[in-house]
């Protein structure tokens, strides 16, 4: 109640972003170190950071979609299907009327798919997982069916849409050039960081920038707006919300519709920005990874963003050189070693031993294995997801009633 606790809170608030920045800088220092040892510079190359961002955006949109639904108390397994809706409608309407109409169409149809999930789960009270799965199946089936009807055959192939005009992109003037010049000078650490920054300041799509803005916007809505407060309570304790005269059903309808729209926009990005066609299977399970970023991000927009960057990064590595995975293993080994030292200093022998083991293993792999099999590189993102979720599971605070059935007037 005193001002003391308040200042303490304020302090920890300012402390944590500073801590995170320091942590990231430290990690990056290690990566720079590893790169100068191994001579591979792929992790911090502009190509990797650019690709990371491109891969992260669809995951981010799916993640934000999942977050909107779950914060309001409904789990949205249908994200994958809603992304398919986005890829198909964006490509088809984009082909007919230009890419901007394509994006608009994806937003509208995504909203509709979310609304459908809301009718099934909120109004009719169907199990949320069942409804989500149904949406995934329907969307995949409908996309194939409609492709067959509408797309002109390209060499007998009806699973690909005709190409859509590309959207404009731009390079941030001066800033990008500045980073580029430093990157080329090959200074330890500084050049590595500049390389990374150069990658995300050049050839930026306007859509990328617009979609990135949804992260702070979602935060603002959740913690500053009236709707956000009501939405959070719909997910935490709908009975309480209802008893205070809040229309939980309506709140959920809106939130789930927005959820569909966001996921669908992620699909539109895949079709119109990351490529310029619709292709069957284009979403490739990103809706589910998006769901994982929600958990990874502890149901916070900034956390979802961080999660999508992580998964986007592992994804980017997959399509780039396999050696960089090796550098990453070495970097992980060094991090584990540092953690082992940290824990032995504070005399927590169990974690110290565990981290020491991990470090040894990483170094062993680095020494003994020459080439990482491509298969491993492919499953790496899934593996990373699993590890991260295992370690984080203890500290998560999910919305208390997310996934639970709720009927109006229940006690």
């Amino acid at each position, binding site marked *: 109640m005193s001002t003391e*606790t*308040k200042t303490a809170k304020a302090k920890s608030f300012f402390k944590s972003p500073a801590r995170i920045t320091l942590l990231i800088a430290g990690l990056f220092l290690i990566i720079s170190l590893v790169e100068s040892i191994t001579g591979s510079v792929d992790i911090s190359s502009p190509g990797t950071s650019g690709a990371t961002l491109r891969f992260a955006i669809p995951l981010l949109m799916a993640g934000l979609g999942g977050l909107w639904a779950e914060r309001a108390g409904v789990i949205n397994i249908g994200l994958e299907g809603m992304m398919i809706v986005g890829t198909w409608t964006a490509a088809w309407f984009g082909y007919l009327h230009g890419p901007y109409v394509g994006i608009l169409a994806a937003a509208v149809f995504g909203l509709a798919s979310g609304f459908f999930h809301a009718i099934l789960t909120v109004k009719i009270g169907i199990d949320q997982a069942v409804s989500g799965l149904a949406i995934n199946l329907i969307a995949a089936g409908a996309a194939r069916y409609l492709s067959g009807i509408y797309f002109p055959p390209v060499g007998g192939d009806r699973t690909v849409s005709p190409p859509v005009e590309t959207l404009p992109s731009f390079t941030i003037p001066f800033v990008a050039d500045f980073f580029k010049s430093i990157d080329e000078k090959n200074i330890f650490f500084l050049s590595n960081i500049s390389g990374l920054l150069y990658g995300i300041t050049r050839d930026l799509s306007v859509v990328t920038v617009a979609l990135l803005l949804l992260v702070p916007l979602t935060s603002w809505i959740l913690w500053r*707006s009236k709707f956000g*407060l009501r939405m*959070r309570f719909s997910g935490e304790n709908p*009975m*309480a919300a209802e*008893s205070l005269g809040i229309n939980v059903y309506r709140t959920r309808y809106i939130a789930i519709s927005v959820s569909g729209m966001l996921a669908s926009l992620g699909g539109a990005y895949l079709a119109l920005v990351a490529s310029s066609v619709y292709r069957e299977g284009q979403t490739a399970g990103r809706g589910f990874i998006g769901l994982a970023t929600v958990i990874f991000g502890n149901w916070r927009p900034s956390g979802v963003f961080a999660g999508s960057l992580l998964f986007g990064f592992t994804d980017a590595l997959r399509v780039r050189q396999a050696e960089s995975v090796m550098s990453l293993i070495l970097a992980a080994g060094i991090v584990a070693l540092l953690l082992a030292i940290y824990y032995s200093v504070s005399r927590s022998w169990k974690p110290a031993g565990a981290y020491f083991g991990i470090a040894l293993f990483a170094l062993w792999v680095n020494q003994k294995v020459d080439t990482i099999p491509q298969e491993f590189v492919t499953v790496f993102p899934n593996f990373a997801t699993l590890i991260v979720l295992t370690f984080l599971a203890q500290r998560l*605070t999910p919305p*208390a009633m997310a996934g639970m059935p709720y009927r109006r007037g229940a006690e």
Partner: protein
Amino acid sequence: MSNVLEVIGIEKKYPGVIANRDVSLQVREGSIHAIIGENGAGKSTLMKSLYGLIRPDAGQIKVFGSEVNLKSPQDAIELGIGMVHQHFKLADNATVLENVILGSEPTRFGFVVKYDQARKKLLEITKNYGLDIDPDESLSNLGVGERQRVEIAKVLFRGAKILILDEPTAVLVPQEVDELFANLRELVKNGLTVLFISHKLDEVLSIADDITIMRQGTTVATRKPKETNKKELAELMVGGELPKPKAGELKVSSESILSIKSAAYSRADGREILHDVNLELHGGEIVGLAGVEGNGQSELIELIMGLAQPSAGSVQVLGLDAATTLTREIRNAGVAYIPQDRQRDGLLMSAPLWENRILGHQFADPMAKGVWVNKGAAIEDSKRVVDEFDVRTPGINVLASALSGGNQQKFIVGRELTGDPKLIVAAQPTRGVDVGAQAIIWDHLMQARSKGAGILLVTADLEELFSLSDRIAVIYSGTIVSILNPAKTTPEDLGLAMTGAKSA
């Protein structure tokens, strides 16, 4: 003084039960009006009608002299009626301020919440009425007493003139009750009117200006505390004489039922909740565990039930090491558990009673038949529990959520006392039950004791503690600070020990 609230001939039917009929009530402005009655007498139902949560089938409600038609809580709030529910309606994962303002947020342009202004208003309210809460505290850090103050602040924030509290004292320890009553007096001094439900007749006599008694769905009488006494009230409630618990004689066996040796427990975040706890419990005795809520009682119970592992020391339950034994095996060995939060840990609210009878006994005879549950036995035994413990319900096929709070409690107690358990961990066993049912439950606990069971009784009810316990262990700030003999201890001594003052 004029009547701020008047109820004329209200009626409400549920399938198979008449929850309210012919209910009449007059509440004077600036008074504290108590409603008492047995479990299932229809008190909560009446309050829900007054708050617009349910719509009565017939009858009139007048607020400030004019007849009203309450379609939703929103209507009630607009008329200045606020309600604190029997079961709190709060979200853990949010701050006090957010919980308070939800639904009547002050906004800019209709959608930006003015958190600063809201905080200022809340601080003003908490100051004026002496409600000690911090707006920015996360709700998950608050104990029951504080949560209740949040609920009251919530109602006041909406500008309520009439406050309805459903069993506000059931979950509080004596000190907290005193604090609550001080708060309530402050409210009526400021011109507000308080309507509250209670099962504790002493309390009602000490604080209320008027007392209305309900029986079997209807209001039977209204009394002033000066003109009545406990006995008359109790008889009006049950319509006859009260059963008396028979005190059996003390036959403590040498068998150690529960043995806790220098046990400690830390939460995942590293906070130490319990340290150096030592407790021995033998067959045939009742040990009362007294303490202000949040001093480690819940965690101690979790250690005993094998729901949590001690970080140091040992917990032996019926000779089993609770740290390494599955909760299922602990239960099968003959441990009964009456959890303190009946709706969270004791019942499946959306399952019928007979299914709830199986809960916790699903692996042992007679509820299990091989890998199947034995539906027939469950149904039969549910009927027995309903009879023996006087659970007021239209049948055993109704959902647990259709029972009144006290009847839910009776059902759980009945279920747990089945099958001659050797150790009974009873947390707040009579929370929210009426005096008649309380006597029945006490009687059953005493019978279990004379059959040789050891009972750990965790209770906030001093009367219960003193009349049942053979020994009283006082827990304070994570450890047992003293063991008292109830016959030689005064409530004042106990109160001092519970708050950490030098033990008696």
